[in-house]
């Protein structure tokens, strides 16, 4: 079976690879590109552990064919920090203890970033509904929601004061 040629950008870097036409974006991120931060929790788009941004839009990588990535910009959890400087969201998750086992954390951080990119001042309800597609079994969501709201406040502050 002929491999499919994909030319895309992942975390601001150009990427070229060959893959099965039926391979998902999640498959190639993990197995071809070694970007193991996006996780497979269900494979059916119901848990959000594979959340990535595609041209800034929040999607499940398990529901995107790798072939569809050509010509688009993909951002994964590995692209959220600036080098070794954590994004405010990542730092806030740590300060607010918003993770226990950590398997859902990459998905939540990517999803939360997508929210705050669009809506820098969400209400608790808006945050909960935006993140409804990200399952967490350890935390009961409480500290995650607080971390996102606290990060949003800090980011608004940073935007004003630089």
């Amino acid at each position, binding site marked *: 079976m002929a491999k499919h040629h994909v030319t895309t950008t992942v975390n601001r870097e150009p990427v070229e690879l060959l893959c099965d036409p039926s391979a998902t974006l999640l498959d190639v991120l993990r197995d071809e590109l070694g970007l193991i931060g996006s996780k497979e929790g269900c494979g059916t788009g*119901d848990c959000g552990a594979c959340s990535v941004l595609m041209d800034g839009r929040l999607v499940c990588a398990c529901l995107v064919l790798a072939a569809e990535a050509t010509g688009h910009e993909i951002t994964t959890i590995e692209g959220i*920090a600036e080098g070794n400087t954590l994004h405010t969201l990542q730092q806030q998750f740590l*300060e607010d203890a918003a993770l226990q*086992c*950590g*398997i859902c954390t990459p998905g939540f951080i990517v999803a939360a970033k997508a929210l705050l990119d669009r809506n820098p001042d969400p209400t608790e309800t808006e945050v909960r509904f935006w993140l409804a597609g990200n*399952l967490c*079994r350890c935390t009961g*969501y409480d*500290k995650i929601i607080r971390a996102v709201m606290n990060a949003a406040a800090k980011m608004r502050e940073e935007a004003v004061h630089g």
Partner: protein
Amino acid sequence: MGNEQEALNLVNEQVEYKWVGTRPIRPDGADKVTGRATFGADIDLPGMLTGVVIRSPHAHARIISIDTSAAAALPGVLGIVTGADLPELPNEVAAGGEAPINFRYVSENAIARDKVLYDGHAVAAVAATSVEIAHEAASLIKVNYEVLPHVINVLDAMADDAPVLHEGLITKGVEPAPTKASNIAGKTEFAMGDIEKGFAESEVIIERSYTTEAVHQGYIEPHAVVASVAADGMVNIWCSSQGQFMIREFCAKLLGMDIGRIRVTPAEIGGGFGGKTTVYLEPLAVVLAQKSGRPVRMVMSRGEVMRATGPTSGTHVHIKLGAKRDGTFVAGEMVLKYQAGAYPGSPAFLGGMTGFSCYELPNAKATCWDVVSNRPKCAAYRAPGAPMASFGVESAIDELAQTLGMDPLELRLKNAAKEGTATIYGPKFLQIGYVETLLAAKAHPHWSAPLGPNQGRGIACGFWFNIGGPSSASVHVNEDGSVSVVTGNPDIGGSRASMAIMAAEVLGMELSKVKPLIGDTGQIAYSFLTGGSRVTFATGMAVCDAAKDVVRQLRTRAAKMWKVTAEDVEWRDGSAFCTKVEEGKDRAPLTLAAIAHAAARTGGPISGNVSINAAGAGPGFGTHICDVEVDPETGATRVIRYTAIQDVGRAIHPSYVEGQLQGGAVQGIGWALNEEYVYDANGRLQNTGFLDYRMPVASDLPMIDTVLVEVPNPGHPYGVRGVGEVPIVPPLGAVANAVSHAVGLRLTSLPISPPKLLAAIDGAKAAG
């Protein structure tokens, strides 16, 4: 949003600690928020093959034959395993895991022998050079089944004419023993006092049956393992598990290997809650690695997790509670019937031991039935067996309160277990904090907040023993005075942070210079698995002991450097102080770093290594308050406020203790409202994914408020009590009681899904 709840926490002693009770950033945090942390499915080895499992589509069938020839001939297929490749084990119970284990059952569950006993039961596995080839090979394996009649539910499985799963299964614990095999694996009884007399003396009796459905632990990370077997037979396993030593032991037993041949490295674990305290893929991966001579990775799909890994039991619970008119409990009886799944071993007996344990109950009896049926073999789920029995007891108490016109909290206070209260399973409680949690609930603003239309409030309590057990720890002083703390327990909820905190506290040093590590089975001495709410308690105790030994050594080294004796050296705030004053001798304090630098001269590396069998684990109690709002036209239920109060001994890292209360409470909410296993008429699981196995999502819930009541456990250096399991025990009762009050009807069947609730509401309306 601040942590206003901190102000509500009750600390029983005013002790000043440097690190204990603070909220530092966890040491493994950076890796976890950047996606660098390595979980089981993230491990990649050169030459690694992919292993795939072939599973039964039938709930109950005899395996007539398995033809692997077409699969074996497929290029790229390098190994195939069937039940015939694993040794036969004796049918007996041995110590292991969290409770006594029959390893024959574990082995047969991992891969079927002559019968398949549930939809999803593993029949064979194949390893190939790519995922595609592995799946193609799997489809080429031909299994010839003789389909048999099946049985799914516990009451059906107990019936005389039920299809029998195990031809030799004779009910244990029944005198005289039955002559015919059945699905009733065993009966266990606990009793104290005289319940006949107790009920005769009771002025009010509540008697009711309750049911719960099978629910899954729901960890987001599917099981994952990489196994590699070298030419000399040495086995290396990397996997997601709750205990690398348990994996090693179980694989050794199932494969007939020496334990010393196997080395297990725990990957980061993406949730377990008890479900990863056994083996499924691991022995199969080892056999495939052996046969192929290559590393083999096996990862379950979500569907496989749901079909073939242990949920906990669905149950039938019968409660009879007798009391005086003033609310004093006199007698309590429970009959528990729990689904074990395909092999014996449900936690029914644990339900019997825990259900009444929050209360002074002079006359009590628990009869616990363990029943097999064509479902996956159940596995431990956070306080196994307790939530279901507690649901029944707490619902009955709520109904008793209504009948007597008493406040449900006051009724519980009146009968609360205290120091000296006898338990149905034997011991008397030492110092416990149950009453404190009730008083905290009474004082909490939630308890007196007003309710609106269609809203109801429920309160319920719960108990779990918590365990100690064997743990090891090594505390190494590095040459620059930094410290490594090595333990053998996978970090499931933030325990690394607590290990570092405790070591730093004992050593009196900067927390940032203490690095906790989790060793593989070759790097640290034996530790019992992460479970039973034991790690902060038992492994923490080992860390404290090892750190104390290091302090002793540091004092000895300082003494050498000063040419005094160890008695003249005090350790304080991370430095040695010489208490002997001598003319002309300048003895400025020696820091840990200074002593470490000089270690080679004073006797060599400084390291404390401890293995203990921790005793003195304190039991935990929780009181939860839940408010719900019900839409009476649709039966939709929303939790609008929730408060979880628990006696936690001492919170080493309060954020992670709060996290345990919140996570357990939400699992309980899901169990009460929406989660259940649904089978069709053919015994096939209908909801194999997160779409239709409905766990709570972020928008379903409010904030989960917590109150940490600290009644320190005298059995631990810092007063730690296990906290992880108690929080899942009260929510079933709390939610059910809340809904019952919201709609004015007693709900006795979980989950309280909308169709059920609406039918109950409409039924009551019709009845007038």
